[in-house]
């Protein structure tokens, strides 16, 4: 990328939206869903970010299935909170993949080059902390067929942890060869966080301390935790009978008691959920042809799932 690119992208977003919009619609007709191209329309009021087949988009919280503002920002996974947008940009013909941190005006504040395949992204509620997970090829220790790389950026200090494998687990320095991390969620103090650590065929909920660079396992069979707005519960995916090969049940765990409630969504959910408010979670479910929809279900195990945003994924309410 040349020095021109940053300014160029800004111009693209605002001025050349017609050009990009035309291309996006064309691609959608060809590839994603011939029947329903996604025209961009302005959104007012409180908004929720989603991805529309890899395009950063926003919908109104009051009408999530309604008009959608589709930007030119390409992300394979994104999250937004507190005025900060984290976009995991796919590798292109001329550029490697990257984490791009944007403000609400889509100005690029920081770019971190990354190697791997975007999988999870999370911004702390204040907008200060950003975490990501990538699938990484070529790690021979991945008996389950994959390996991950998870990093954290403090956007206030610029402190960058490229891999949680650098952290000390339970006072034990060094790295177990088969340790994998994914799915970070931050607490309100912008220091403590939760994540998944897999080792020895188990997937543990760990609590981390960013400043102290430590991690401590809490409980088995918790993946992709997502802290509730009140900070008292996590929504997560629990492998059915502890076996990811059988899929995952969307569940909510009370952090004080570690008691878990399976939610009314009975299909396998492979996503890091997000919270709509303290009483409902949102998550993506993929159809057989690769099209995603954002669904919502009550957080207490009652009710029935329903589509919140059709043809979208990576929800950030």
């Amino acid at each position: 990328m040349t020095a021109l690119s940053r300014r160029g992208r800004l111009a693209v977003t605002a001025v050349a939206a017609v050009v990009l919009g035309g291309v996006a619609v064309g691609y959608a007709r060809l590839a994603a869903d011939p029947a329903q191209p996604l025209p961009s329309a302005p959104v007012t009021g409180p908004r929720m970010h989603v991805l529309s087949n890899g395009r950063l988009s926003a919908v109104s919280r009051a009408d999530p299935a309604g008009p959608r503002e589709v930007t030119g920002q390409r992300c394979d996974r994104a999250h937004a909170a507190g005025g900060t947008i984290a976009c995991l940009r796919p590798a292109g013909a001329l550029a490697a993949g990257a984490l791009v941190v944007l403000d609400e005006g889509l100005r690029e504040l920081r770019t971190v080059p990354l190697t791997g395949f975007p999988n999870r992204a999370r911004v702390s509620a204040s907008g200060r902390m950003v975490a990501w997970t990538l699938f990484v090829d070529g790690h021979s220790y991945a008996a389950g067929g994959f390996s991950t790389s998870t990093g954290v950026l403090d956007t206030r200090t610029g402190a960058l942890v490229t891999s949680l494998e650098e952290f000390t687990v339970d006072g034990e320095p060094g790295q177990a060869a088969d340790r994998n991390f994914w799915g970070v969620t931050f607490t309100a103090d912008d220091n403590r966080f939760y994540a998944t650590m897999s080792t020895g065929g188990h997937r543990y909920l760990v609590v981390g301390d960013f400043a102290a660079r430590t991690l401590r396992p809490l409980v088995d069979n918790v993946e992709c935790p997502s802290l509730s707005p009140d900070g008292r519960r996590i929504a997560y995916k629990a492998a059915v009978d502890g076996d990811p090969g059988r899929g995952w049940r969307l569940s909510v765990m009370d952090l004080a008691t570690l008691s878990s409630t399976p939610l009314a969504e009975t299909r396998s959910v492979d996503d890091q959920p997000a919270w709509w408010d303290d009483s409902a979670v949102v998550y993506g479910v993929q159809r057989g042809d690769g099209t995603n929809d954002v669904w919502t279900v009550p957080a207490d195990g009652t009710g029935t799932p329903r589509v919140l945003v059709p043809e979208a994924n990576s929800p950030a309410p």
Partner: protein
Amino acid sequence: MPGRRAPLAVVAVGIATAATLTAAASGDAPAAAAATTTFTATADAFVDSSAAATNHGTSGQLGVDGSPVKRLFLKFTVSGLPGAVSGAKLRVHTDDVADAHSGAGGTFRATTDTTWSETGVTWNDQPAIDGTALGELGAVSRNAWHELDVTSYVTGNGTYSIGVTSTSTDGADYDSRETGATAPQLVVTTGTTTTTPAPSADPVLVGVGDISDSGSGDSVTADLLDDIPGTVFTLGDNVYDSGTRSEFSSYYEPTWGRHKARTRPSPGNHDYNTSGASGYYDYFGAQAGPSGRGYYSYDLGDWHVISLNSNISMSAGSPQERWLRADLAASTKRCTVAYWHHPLFTSGANHSPSTATRPLFQALYDYNADVVLTGHNHQYERFAPQNPNGGLDTARGIRSFVAGMGGAGHYRFGTIKPNSEARNSDTYGVLKLTLHSDSYDWQFVPEAGRSYSDSGTTACH
């Protein structure tokens, strides 16, 4: 901004191509109207002589045993069939638990009483197993589908009830309908089943990648090959996880092994988890080309077929790339297909496009090849003909497929890439190519009981 005009042009050409394809596909639609409809059990339960008054209707398991005696009952409601029944198969799936397997899967017979209820039936209050004899299942393995032909019993819409008994003291355990995806099924075929081989004697090339692990997906795809004559290709990751010789013996040999004599494989990264892929070369022998090299070619009818190795150097000037260019230059065939493991074009969410393969794709493009088959992402995806940089190219582009649905657990899709024309990530199957003298037909052949399909025809360059 040279890129600005190009994508818009691409869009316009793409729409025209899609229209052409649609016309071609409908023109070639087969005349026969066979259809399969899958019904899951509407009630199922086992009864147990050692707990004679207990109902087990909501259990996730269906046990059948000789001591203590357990019997199981299945009920299906068949309705809405689109035509006369030409065949019916009962499918039951063994539990994924120790001891689910058995040397005897049970004796199946209809019950004339179809009024029993799932939550009411007990040993003391069970229907008589007194109807049409349906046959027996022999040895059943753990965590696998097993099938029984019940065409003699299922003749049209209606309610069907089946009882199962066993005299084996080491009984079998099946999954009940409460388990969802592995619930007992009745697969009913209506209309004329015309599985006649292609009217012409044009050769068939059929296969898939990402095949044999400890699960049952490879059995399902191996079964499909039983009904498809022709040359079998593999797209790598023939066995998991380590590519050892013993994995080939334990996983591949009992399933795809029965098609080995007609198989021309290619290796994947899991095959190369054993140093030098020695398990792979030892198992396939001369059918994998020169041992240790992993790339070779052969002819089928009017086609030149090339199996390549994406686990070693593919760079321009590498021995493999130079061999490929020489092989293409020497070929006298009108049409060319090549296959290897790592895809250059994929919308998969687990493995990104392997740009290291581009020099191979470039060589094939330079010599006007027609089709490239790859795997690695555990799913199916078909792309329109593209140039090596992913641009739509209806004149000289190569149509590429990801066919990684051979048996290993499915992956998800990420952002859908331009020119991706068809996708599926929930059905095992094989990809069948019929190689005509100046064109090819492709067909996704799904696992029994599933309906996903994708087929079409494209002319050679």
